[in-house]
């Protein structure tokens, strides 16, 4: 045996000596892997924890119960329950009077402070109540009113009594008033009826996500109606009908490029083309849906193509063998068999579209919209944009409501993804 190559016994010895070091290195890599996954899961948990702890209280608010005299002449002077009449009425004053009777403010300054304790939406609440139930007139009923957001923050403990008065957002007098109300047991902590049914508002205690939510639904519907048929049609054409030539290659390259373009750019395109050139109004779900549809199109096309390719050639061969035409094979056999895959791809695409913010900012769905949009042509906003706008506001209650809105958004996303996974598992075929 040549000196250069080692004898087996020597080799064995060398190997045995090196083993422990090598095993340690092996275990180290395994450990790094576990740490990495652990870190990623940690991040996820911290994120969810932080959102949840901030958001859960956002679903609740503090309310004050006051006894209101539903005096028709004062609330509805014209007597016809019209908006004009209610606007001229003195609902606010009645509420204030009820409040004063309990906390007894002295002098104009104190009365002014007292007025601010109850949320400024008090007259709207009274108006809604009498419209829904005119039999309230003539009665004295207890009504729960939301408290102003500073008062709410105080009650939650974020504004502390101990801080000196000039550093606090509410004055000592107001704290006194709150104590009185508390002693009478008139303050309660309840599930907020604003968060889910209210709309955007400058006042955090009245802010809600209903408008944004409906806007999101409208926008997504437009997106789905445009993107799904177009996506499926394109996928079918590219996979089944088009010959493999330079043109189809070009289309494929285009689609892959579009999938890589940042979402902002789609918004810019929407701004420049739909709004500037076509002159469509800004901020409407129709335009938003169109922009999102173009953004989601590549995703749907790519997953639909994969679904179509997964249909085995034997099915097509069988259909052709019976004498079906190409279009018949496609519509009677291929599409139904590929539909589960196409649907899951679409659901995932819709979930992505639901969470998109930047492109919709570009086309102007940022306006402060108080009314709930009734159609795709009414100005509206979407949930992620609402979250973005609220995130700028410093009031504590906005932080909580924003987190609550995020919880709602994540809830929808999780259900959509869960639906996609469920569909995929249930409709999975073993060819």
């Amino acid at each position, binding site marked *: *045996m*040549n000196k*250069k*190559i*080692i*004898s*087996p016994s*020597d*080799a*064995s010895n*060398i*190997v*045995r000596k*090196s*083993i422990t070091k*090598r*095993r340690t290195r092996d275990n180290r890599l395994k450990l790094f892997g576990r740490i990495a996954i652990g870190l990623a899961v940690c991040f996820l948990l911290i994120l969810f924890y932080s959102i949840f702890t901030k958001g859960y209280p956002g679903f609740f608010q503090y309310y004050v119960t006051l006894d209101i005299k539903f005096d028709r002449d004062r609330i509805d002077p014209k007597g016809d329950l019209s908006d004009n009449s209610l606007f001229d009425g003195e609902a606010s004053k009645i509420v204030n009077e009820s409040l004063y009777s309990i906390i007894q403010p002295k002098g104009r300054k104190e009365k002014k402070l007292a007025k601010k304790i109850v949320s400024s939406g008090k007259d709207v609440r009274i108006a809604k109540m009498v419209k829904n139930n005119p039999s309230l007139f003539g009665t004295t009923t207890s009504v729960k009113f939301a408290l102003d957001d500073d008062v709410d923050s105080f009650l939650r403990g974020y504004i502390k009594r101990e801080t000196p008065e000039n550093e606090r957002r509410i004055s000592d007098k107001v704290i006194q008033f709150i104590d009185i109300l508390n002693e009478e047991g008139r303050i309660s902590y309840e599930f907020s009826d604003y968060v889910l049914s209210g709309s955007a508002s400058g006042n955090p205690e009245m802010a809600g996500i209903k408008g944004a939510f409906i806007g999101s639904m409208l926008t997504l519907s437009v997106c789905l109606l445009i993107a799904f048929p177009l996506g499926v049609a394109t996928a079918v054409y590219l996979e089944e009908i088009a010959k493999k030539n330079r043109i189809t290659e070009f289309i494929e390259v285009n689609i892959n490029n579009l999938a890589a373009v940042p979402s902002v750019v789609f918004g810019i395109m929407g701004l420049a083309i739909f709004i500037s050139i076509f002159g469509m109004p800004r901020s409407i779900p129709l335009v938003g849906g169109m922009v999102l549809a173009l953004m989601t199109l590549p995703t749907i096309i790519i997953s639909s193509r994969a679904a179509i390719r997964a249909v085995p050639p034997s099915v097509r061969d069988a259909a052709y063998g019976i004498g079906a035409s190409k279009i018949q094979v496609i519509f009677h056999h291929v599409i139904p068999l590929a539909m589960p895959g196409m649907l899951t791809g679409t659901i995932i695409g819709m979930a992505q579209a639901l969470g998109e913010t930047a492109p919709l900012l570009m086309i102007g769905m940022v306006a402060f919209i108080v009314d709930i949009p009734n159609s795709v042509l009414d100005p509206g906003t979407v949930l992620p944009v609402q979250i973005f706008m609220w995130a700028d506001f410093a009031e504590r209650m906005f932080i909580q409501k924003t987190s609550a809105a995020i919880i709602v958004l994540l809830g929808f996303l999780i259900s959509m993804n869960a639906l996609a996974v469920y569909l995929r598992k249930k409709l999975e075929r073993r060819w």
Partner: protein
Amino acid sequence: MSNNNDLKSLDLTVGDVFAQNPRLKARNVSVFYGDNKAIDNVTIDIGNKEVISFIGPSGCGKSTFLRCFNRMNDTIDSCIVKGKITIDDENIYDKKIDVVPLRARIGMVFQKPNPFPKSIYDNVAYGPRIHGLSENKDHLDGIVEESLKRAGLWEEVSDRLDSAGTGLSGGQQQRLCIARAIAVSPEVILMDEPCSALDPIATAKIEELIHELGNDYSIVIVTHSMQQAARVSKRTAYFHLGKLIEVGRTKDIFTRPQHHQTEAYISGKIG
């Protein structure tokens, strides 16, 4: 005579399972894939510096049994090995045994050549590097050269050691894999149908190589081809449906098989 044969076919292997100075001893080895029994109670010795072939029809478990010797079956989750296989009187399936030094002593060449996507040099040098077998660069160069020479590849590639191993022809790739296995100084080389993916000329070259290598290493070769077994090995073991039916000198197995099943396989009635 037929009575005798029937008795023997029940559970005893015919022929010489044992060897003088065995390198590896397998005793009552059974292998299960889940509930499926792939190898049933096999006992056999692998002798020192001999070439032994495992033959038998497809699916009879030859490759599975081969892979037991270097514990490659460990990579398959559902595989359970019972029985003992010892090298130097140590049971390789003992919990205390580290599989790494074992595989340095018992090398393997696979059915389809699988050189690493690295240069020819790096392919051969890989083993010595990870095991720390060379003291310096010159030593490593020497090991690489010697291994390639023993694998009969040196002349063809000495001027392009830095080119990709995957750029060689099928036969050359397999010889590269053999060189790679040799470079870690094994005592036994296991070969799992090493020529089945190669053309006849490359096959011939490798068969010649195996014959030579038998002077320095114990080689166990699984083969589909009886002719190949006849050409390269001194001893042959015939497997059928997971059982070891007969072991003996290759000449004897092919001219005077003792077991009727061996005889049936050799004459082409089954397989």
